[in-house]
């Protein structure tokens, strides 16, 4: 518990630090106000921007719903990067795995027409399997040939995006009457139920039960790491593969298993996006989520709770950023800057420490990433 508090504290301080820098950026870029020397207006802009950032992420049902919607795929794909990190692998391929999982989930979503209680879990499972197979390729390549997973997962991302483009133009997937690469809509029963579906006339509350899938997956990840022999083996391999071999663990099998799990999580991210958020698939289904997931995992130090917290933070920034853009002249790009700053401040704890004069030892006891060492 103290570890959690400790890691939370630095994340929060990093958030605070980046909001400060962000404020300076808002002021500096508010050219009009600066030009006439209207510092009061600049100050107001910052206040309004941050107020709508907060309100857009946590104030009121719609904001919470938007935050949940944004968090869901970030959390699942963040787990995909985290589980690989734990095993000492650097999974850049969440994008490709999401696409693969999204497409398999989509296929189950529009070909079947069973009752929802059957079709939804089946489609999510199909997404996990699709993603797992795709992630597993990188694992097998590494175990068999030693091909570095950073290279292979990046390449597999490209392969996935072209595969999706091609699939979306086949008659199996392409929506009838549409010239562009966009898929058929999934069956009504295949939709992940909306969280606030019980509220009449609130179609703006888009959050769906994919969030529970993500929370369940996070619990599963925690259980795996802390309570199973496999999790112990994965962690051991990630921290010291020589010692793991010495202890009799099968490092090659573990590589493949880690990538299968990673792909499974990312595949679920693709599945919940298709089955919950969109109801169809397009080439930009995965967007930047696969890469934001790396930041999520990094920020969360690959721990289950850390990944959850940082995914929530990023999801909230995403939702709040939209309302900030709508209410002020501050462009949504500020959110990208803020996210980058948070990660940077977390990666540079000494800087944060100096900024806030945090006492106590803050040594390199956090998880360090050994992915490149492979």
């Amino acid at each position, binding site marked *: 518990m103290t570890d959690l508090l400790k890691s939370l504290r630095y994340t929060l301080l990093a958030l605070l630090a980046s909001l400060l820098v962000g404020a300076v950026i808002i002021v500096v870029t508010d050219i009009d106000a600066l030009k006439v020397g209207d510092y009061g207006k600049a100050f107001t802009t910052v206040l309004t921007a941050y107020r709508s950032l907060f309100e857009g992420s946590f104030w009121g049902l719609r904001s919470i719903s938007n935050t949940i919607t944004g968090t869901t795929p970030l959390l699942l794909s963040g787990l995909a990067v985290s589980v690989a990190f734990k095993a000492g692998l650097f999974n850049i391929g969440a994008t490709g795995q999401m696409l693969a999982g999204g497409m398999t989930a989509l296929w189950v979503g529009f070909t079947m027409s069973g009752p929802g209680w059957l079709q939804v879990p089946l489609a999510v499972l199909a997404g996990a399997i699709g993603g797992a197979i795709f992630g597993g390729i990188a694992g097998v390549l590494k175990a068999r040939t030693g091909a570095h997973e950073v290279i292979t997962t990046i390449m597999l991302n490209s392969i996935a995006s072209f595969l999706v483009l091609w699939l979306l133009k086949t008659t199996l997937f392409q929506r009838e009457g549409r010239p562009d690469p966009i898929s058929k809509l999934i069956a009504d029963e295949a939709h992940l139920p909306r969280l606030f579906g019980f509220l009449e006339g609130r179609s703006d509350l888009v959050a769906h039960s994919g969030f529970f899938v993500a929370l369940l997956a996070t619990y599963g990840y925690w259980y795996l790491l802390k*309570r*199973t022999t496999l999790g112990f083996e994965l*962690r051991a391999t990630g921290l*010291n593969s*020589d010692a793991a071999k*010495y202890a009799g663990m099968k490092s090659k099998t573990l590589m493949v298993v880690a990538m299968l799990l990673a792909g499974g999580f990312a595949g679920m991210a693709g599945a919940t996006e298709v089955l919950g958020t969109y109801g169809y698939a397009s080439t930009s289904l995965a967007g930047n989520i696969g890469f934001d997931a790396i930041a999520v995992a990094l920020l969360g130090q690959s721990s289950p709770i850390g990944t959850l917290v940082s995914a929530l933070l990023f999801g909230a920034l995403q939702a709040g950023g939209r309302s900030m853009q709508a209410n002020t002249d501050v462009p949504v790009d500020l959110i990208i800057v803020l996210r980058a700053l948070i990660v940077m401040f977390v990666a540079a704890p000494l800087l944060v420490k100096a900024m806030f004069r945090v006492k106590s*030892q803050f040594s390199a006891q956090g998880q360090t990433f050994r992915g490149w060492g492979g």
Partner: protein
Amino acid sequence: MKLELRGITKRFPGVVANDSVNLSIATGEVLALVGENGAGKSTLMNVLYGLYKADEGEILIDGASKKFNSPADAIASGIGMVHQHFMLVPVFSVAENVVLGSEPTRRLGALDIEQARKMVRDVSDRYNLNLDPDAIVEDLPVGVRQRVEIVKVLLRDAKIVVFDEPTAVLTPSEILEFFEIVRTLIRSGKGVVFITHKLKEALTIADRINVLRRGKVVGDADPKTASEAQIAEMMVGRPVQLTVDKKPADPKQVVLSVKDLSLIDPDGRTVVDQVSFEVRAGEIVGIAGVQGNGQTELVEALSGLRNANSGVVEIDGKDVTKASPRERHSLGMGHVPEDRQRQGLITGMSITENLVLTRYHDNEFCNGMKMRWSDASKKAKELVANYDIRTSDPDQLASTLSGGNQQKVIVARELSRKIGLVLAAQPTRGIDVGSIEYIHEQIVKERDAGTAVLIVSTELDEVMALSDRLLVMYRGKIVADLDPKKISHMDVGLYMAGSRPESAVGSHR
């Protein structure tokens, strides 16, 4: 030049690392600073080198008080430091490494590599270091790398050179060469501070010995009169058993049998050449040899981490030549690996987790895939108590333990399993006297309980003291099978160097 530390106190949260330490060293002499791991030797030297600021006390050079805020100040005052872990760029040449940070330049800042080469040659010749300025550091043996560090220090005009555990990484012959270098330095008017926990070395090379215990200087010793046992007692604070006390062995059935084992490394060199031997229940067989004569590879093959190219390995009569490490573990093999940080431990995991690293899959600790950490914790508490592992909480990371206690974790884990065979490689490398004594006791106890023990060590004293039977390895072959009670250190040393003593006893191969 005369350097003096007066009343140095350095506190860290919860510990006083140095407690009003007084120390002095002049050019022309070797001062050995000995103490167990964690006694405060390194802290003291880091204060001297400007890396830490002392809470109290002062540093005087030729009687004048100095303030060191950074290593640059220390270097400017003529103090040089050779760290235990070298700070070299592996892909650079010797000359490039030596000038790194103060590169001689030509116009426009171009690196004057010719000048750098000349500087290295000059220093190398003057101190007999025998260094090739153009050699690439990563190709050099550890002993030569250390000389590169020494050149770096000398080029920065050090009058007093501090060596932090310089022999920990060296082979016996490199240690001898190192001592020669130290003597040359002294003859050239330098002063040397030699930090070590190896008493024999301190006695060999030092003019004076200071003993540190728990941050305090607890005594001075004159190497001409003091004995190893006296100094060890000062270090540990109680009388220490330096020799191993054991009954004669009572060997029973063959447990480990190795027949014509050969190993070829990826470069095609034969590193282990047709090796055959047996280890019986209830005996300790030692393998002596200079580092790099195939012992590491032999142990890897015996433990299943490396495939044999030819030959047969049997445990209890079962052919395990192609068995995985786990299969061998289940046949009752315990393995204390050579490199505890790299193989034996996962320092980023807790002590408890490390204590079950090779047995987490036993029914004792899991139901199928589900770990029972409560049982693991119970076991860990028991082992921490039984094996005298000094920690307040087994849930702390293994990295928080001292080297000796880390090694005790490994020994505890491996010896507490149901085993009939122990492979122990370098079981006491780099750990303090107290822990060595303890680990030796445990190994002998295991033998007396009927376990077959194979010890591989480059520390001749250790194998001589522990073994009931002594094999010597040279260039991948076993060149001698000796009775350690009937042969002198000197003669074993000759076998290790590849020659055969006149007064040879025992059988040869």
